[in-house]
């Protein structure tokens, strides 16, 4: 069968780096990648996928971390007959030494297609495509090198953190330390699926939410502060002198009218009680404004994609939680949530969907948290109340 890939070749053109080039590079040494290229060209012709559901494949002792894949035309594409991916848990914040990365590359050159995703949408390193036989030895060498598998299936998925205090002045919590700790604490939950469905945890250091935790995590941790944000009036003046139209760019964009510009004293006036910590003014004037000093996190729950009952954004469960090792309060909360979900959840029912079905009231009772207005945007409009 021909090795020509006229359609894919079109995707080598243009300024953006080309994944087709990448597959071709890998194909030089990996027959699997060669067939990957060919089967992709086939899909470009047919305009359908040529992959089938994977059976249960994996490594001893784990129920997660490998996505099984088989192609639907092994006779045409023998080298990708089986083409499983391994999800490798990234170090929190996605920092690497080149030494560690090269090691992963060497192992994958030996056991896999040489193709990867840096990174998967959840955050893992995705080692894309190997055979069933190679899974175990590849895993063994990876653990030797200090890496382990991430989550898949009805398990806790690999938690993720924004860069946080490692390189961001706005991090109200140490997201990387927290996520590393949780990941280590919940190795069993990550590797051995036992729940109604997947569960995701993500942590951002401030409401900018640079890991999109509120949209993608059943359990969303977002750094915040209780006191007033800090203002360096001199630096504010500097921005204004440098020509920033502070009123239209900053003051008028405050969602709660918490800011005012005092022309006379050319100072920025904050009504701290009205600030909802949206970050906008801080984002606009990083040299002049900073989060407050009483730092902690808001815990939100329920974020997920549309399957099955529609997408959810996480909503506020705990307005403020102090975030200090060993994170006991958070872990106790997670335990209560998982118990309740495990007990009442149907198969493929995410936490948010279970709460929608059974009611937030029941949930709050189960995790014994008392209702506060911060949990809602607005009270009920209907008169259909249970007493």
């Amino acid at each position, binding site marked *: 069968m021909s090795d020509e890939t006229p359609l894919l070749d079109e995707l080598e053109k243009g300024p953006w780096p080309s994944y087709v080039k990448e597959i071709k590079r890998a194909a030089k040494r990996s027959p699997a990648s060669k067939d990957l290229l060919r089967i992709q060209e086939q899909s470009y012709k047919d305009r359908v996928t040529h992959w089938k559901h994977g059976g249960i494949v994996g490594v001893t002792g784990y129920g997660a971390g490998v996505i099984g*894949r088989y192609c639907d035309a092994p006779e045409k594409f023998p080298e990708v007959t089986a083409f499983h991916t391994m999800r490798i848990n*990234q170090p929190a914040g996605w920092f690497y030494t080149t030494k*560690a990365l090269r090691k992963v590359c060497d192992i994958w050159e030996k056991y896999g297609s040489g193709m990867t995703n840096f990174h998967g949408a959840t955050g893992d390193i995705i080692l894309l495509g190997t055979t069933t036989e190679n899974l175990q030895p590849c895993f063994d060498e990876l653990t030797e090198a200090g890496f382990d598998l991430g989550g898949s299936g009805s398990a806790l998925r690999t938690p993720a953190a924004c860069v946080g205090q490692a390189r961001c002045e706005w991090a109200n919590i140490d997201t990387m330390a927290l996520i590393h700790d949780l990941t280590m604490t919940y190795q069993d939950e990550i590797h051995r699926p036992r729940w109604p469905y997947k569960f995701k945890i993500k942590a951002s250091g401030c409401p900018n939410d640079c890991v999109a935790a509120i949209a993608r995590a059943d359990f969303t941790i977002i750094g915040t502060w209780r006191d007033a944000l800090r203002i360096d009036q001199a630096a504010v003046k500097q921005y204004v002198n440098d020509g920033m139209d502070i009123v239209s760019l900053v003051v008028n964009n405050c969602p709660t009218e918490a800011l005012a510009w005092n022309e006379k004293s050319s100072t920025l006036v904050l009504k701290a009680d009205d600030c909802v910590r949206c970050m906008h003014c801080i984002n606009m004037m990083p040299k002049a404004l900073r989060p407050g000093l009483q730092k902690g996190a808001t815990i939100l729950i329920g974020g997920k994609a549309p399957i099955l009952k529609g997408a959810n954004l996480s909503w506020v469960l705990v307005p403020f939680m102090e975030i200090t090792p060993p994170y006991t309060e958070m872990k106790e909360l997670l335990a209560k949530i998982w118990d309740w979900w495990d007990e009442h959840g149907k198969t493929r029912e995410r936490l948010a969907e279970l709460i929608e079905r059974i009611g937030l009231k029941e949930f709050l009772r189960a995790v014994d948290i008392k209702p506060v207005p911060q949990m809602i945007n607005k009270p009920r409009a209907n008169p259909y109340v249970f007493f």
Partner: protein
Amino acid sequence: MRKTDIGPPDYRTMLPDVIAKNYGQWKYHEIVKAGVLKHVSETGDEVYTVRAGSPRLVSIDFIRDACDVADKYCDGHLRFTSRHNVEFLTPNKQNVEPLIQALGKLGMPVGGTGDCISNIVHTQGWIHCHSAATDASGIVKAIMDGLYDHFTNMKLPNHLRISLACCINMCGAIHCSDLAVVGVHTKPPRPDHQKVLAQCEIPTTIQSCPTGAVRRHPDANIKSVVVKEDLCMYCANCFTVCPAMPLADAEADGVAIYAGGKVSNARKPPMFSRMVVPFLPNHPPRWPEVVDVLKKIVEVYAASAKPSERLGEWIERIGWEAFFRRTEIPFTEQHIDDFTHAVETYRTTTQFKW
């Protein structure tokens, strides 16, 4: 003996010195230019970050190239971002330009910071997923080529995030993106009666359908299921639990485009992306219709939004009717919600623009 449950490497072993030393002490940052960040610490230390675009679906050779650059200019460290860009960090200002040169040689564009279009969060597509209604990396490449200048420049009102998912499972978590491209089926699954019994749990399969479209085969002798086509909304849940009922179809599969979502809490709360184009055909290798619509929307937005206004904030301000008028995108039946909370989307006011 075999190691298990060791977890990921400790991030502390992966940090460059300047990061380890100033951890938690960063004071402020500035964007030196597109793709270059400068963070300043309470200690007076500085770190420069050069951000480079990546196709995300890369070979180990690509990683090794990046490592070479990092060894040369970043004391052997680098990181990746939550949108799959690669970041090279260095305390030495002098390294920045050479770094950029080196990345240029590798064909890695520098940018993705500030008021720009950063990398596209995306998924597997025809490269690896059985569920794909469209490809991922291919469209992404075509789109980024088309919007390339917005990656390397910062001339938008605010940053604009594009995401892509090859089916409505939405692995890209695209449901809150400024612009979202999602693979959709538009024909019901075709149960393969030979295979159903062998490959599928019939009760589970029937249950899996949110609209109850999957029914037992009327002929009791045929141990299989049928699909009540008028009830089917092509969500593929049945296919997820039962491989014997594929939906993939060259003509009927394609992509829908959603717009106006955001995640950050800055100014307006997070918002869902909303349908702007119900269906565009799969036209590999470069999906020209998709690229054109996205370019058009970006143009109109860039021309009329206020500083700091995200795409969705701009649309909320001008109103969806004005959005459709200005972008010249046709409004159809499919745009009108008919799912669970549909009524909440109806216009219960006389306030609208002509």
